[in-house]
């Protein structure tokens, strides 16, 4: 049986002033429907490059990506993306920000139905009492909640999360992880998340894909996280296997860090990626 999402022999090469730079090579990963997989690795290892190819924001140089039987060849609302910064339009209310996408993707519904969809998702992230507030009146955590509501409101087949809580303080981050885990449990949405927070990866994931340090980054190791669902923070932290999993992830990252010469390449990868983002 093939996966719901398949990344097959994925590769990405950037042209740099110093010649071509192979950021990602031979990257294979399959996600089953409803599965949550976290990609962890060091900064600049190519995690976000992989995610932006799945989002259709960057074209793979090699290999391909198939979602639900169809090859990805550009961005589309079947994939919801949550970035580190929610990029809300400051002159629109929380509700209007969510309505932007809802109005297009549910254009065949009535006005009342569309409002209902947007409101429903804002309530689901705990923002039922601030629907009419503008981003400037919301805390950073609340703004990211709007970003999550906006992504879920389009009923995506696949949710892509690029360090969505990276800018939040660690306590607010934990609160939002709980909001996310509840939404995923209720909707059964398949999700791929980029993070470098080991605890975040374990709390949310069914499997964690550990990426080798670039260049030529690929999946170095896969870890199945067999912690009971629904995930509850205290129970997860007290689970007898939790610290064993945690140790494996930390050990992998440390092994990668010790890899000689890898850090200079990592910096080059970041440079190449930022040039690509500008271009």
């Amino acid at each position, binding site marked *: 049986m093939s996966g719901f999402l398949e990344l097959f022999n994925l590769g990405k090469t950037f042209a740099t002033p110093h010649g071509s730079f192979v950021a990602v090579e031979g990257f294979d990963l399959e996600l089953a429907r409803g599965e949550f997989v976290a990609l962890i690795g060091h900064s600049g290892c190519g995690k976000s490059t992989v995610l932006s190819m799945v989002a259709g924001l960057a074209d793979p140089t090699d290999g391909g990506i198939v979602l639900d039987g169809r090859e990805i060849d550009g961005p589309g609302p079947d994939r919801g993306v949550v970035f580190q910064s929610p990029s809300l339009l400051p002159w629109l209310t929380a509700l209007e920000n969510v309505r932007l996408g809802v109005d297009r993707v549910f254009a065949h519904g009535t006005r009342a139905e569309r409002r209902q969809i947007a409101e429903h998702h804002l309530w689901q992230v705990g923002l039922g009492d601030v629907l009419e507030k503008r981003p400037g009146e919301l805390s950073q955590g609340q703004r990211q909640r709007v970003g999550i509501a906006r992504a879920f409101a389009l009923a995506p087949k696949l949710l892509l999360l690029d360090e969505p809580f990276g800018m939040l303080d*660690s306590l*607010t981050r934990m609160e939002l992880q709980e909001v996310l885990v509840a939404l995923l449990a209720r909707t059964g949405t398949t999700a791929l998340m980029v993070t470098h927070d080991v605890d975040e990866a374990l709390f949310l994931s069914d499997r964690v894909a550990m990426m080798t340090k670039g260049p030529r980054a690929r999946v170095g190791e896969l870890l199945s996280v067999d912690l009971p669902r629904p995930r509850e923070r205290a129970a997860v932290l007290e689970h007898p296997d939790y610290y064993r999993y945690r140790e494996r992830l930390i050990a992998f990252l440390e092994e990668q860090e010790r890899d000689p010469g890898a850090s200079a390449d990592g910096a080059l990868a970041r440079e190449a990626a930022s040039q690509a983002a500008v271009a």
Partner: protein
Amino acid sequence: MRDPAKPPFLALRGVSKSFGHGAKRTEILRDVELEISEGELVAIVGFSGSGKTTLVSLIAGLLAPDGGTIALRGAPVRGPGPDRGVVFQSYALLPWLTVQGNVQLAVDAVHRDWPRARRRAEAMRFVELVGLAHAAAKRPSELSGGMRQRVAVARALAMDPEILLLDEPLGALDALTRATLQGEIERIWRAQRKTVVLVTNDVDEALVLADRIVPLKPGPGATLGPSFDVRLARPRDRAALNHDLTFKKLRNEVTSYLLELAARRTTGAPGGGPALPALEPLDLRRGAPRGAA
């Protein structure tokens, strides 16, 4: 651990602070009580917006409390002074100086009598300590945010004050870099035994570094919660802590305590609201609902 026979090195008694006037007046801190012994490393852990920076500014003497007193070695704090070094989350680096030059500013100020070569070497020592030896000749604009924060940390460490106030010094760094720098800070603290007040939102950072963790309850009118003593042997090795039962137990206790405070703070709990209409999203390429043939 605190020695009850000695007077506290730093004491905050009934400290409160509000901002604004009239109807817009917001009480940030209320009745803050805190005692810190000489050489102790205390972590104050709280959510963003709970008044952590206000608390650091009060201890630093950059703000005056509305009520209560702050005393260092029994003498009331009346303004900023060289005995209290502060690092805020925003790295205030001089853009026209190199990494080495920015750190040397602090060394020059503290060790005026040292020969130039020695001051240079001392600055380089701290630059190397934060892993920036390869970037010593770069200017701030050529550095990433994380690298800039490392420079700010190096500069603070090079200042050598009596009490070091760290306001989320590693907040802008990624988790892995943060872990490395935490190890460095602990190592330096063990060598120098400075009194340190570390303000952070990261429970792990507090556990790795602190003798004592003091939660700051979410404001308005934030007060300090009960202290958690961190009885873990030093040096604290992250990998080894992962196996340590005391560490795991304390980590769970502190995390649960803070998340419980958060749950009480959250006004709109997730859930409720209108039901979701049964409507399939459109496949925008085909202009038809996704499920339709």
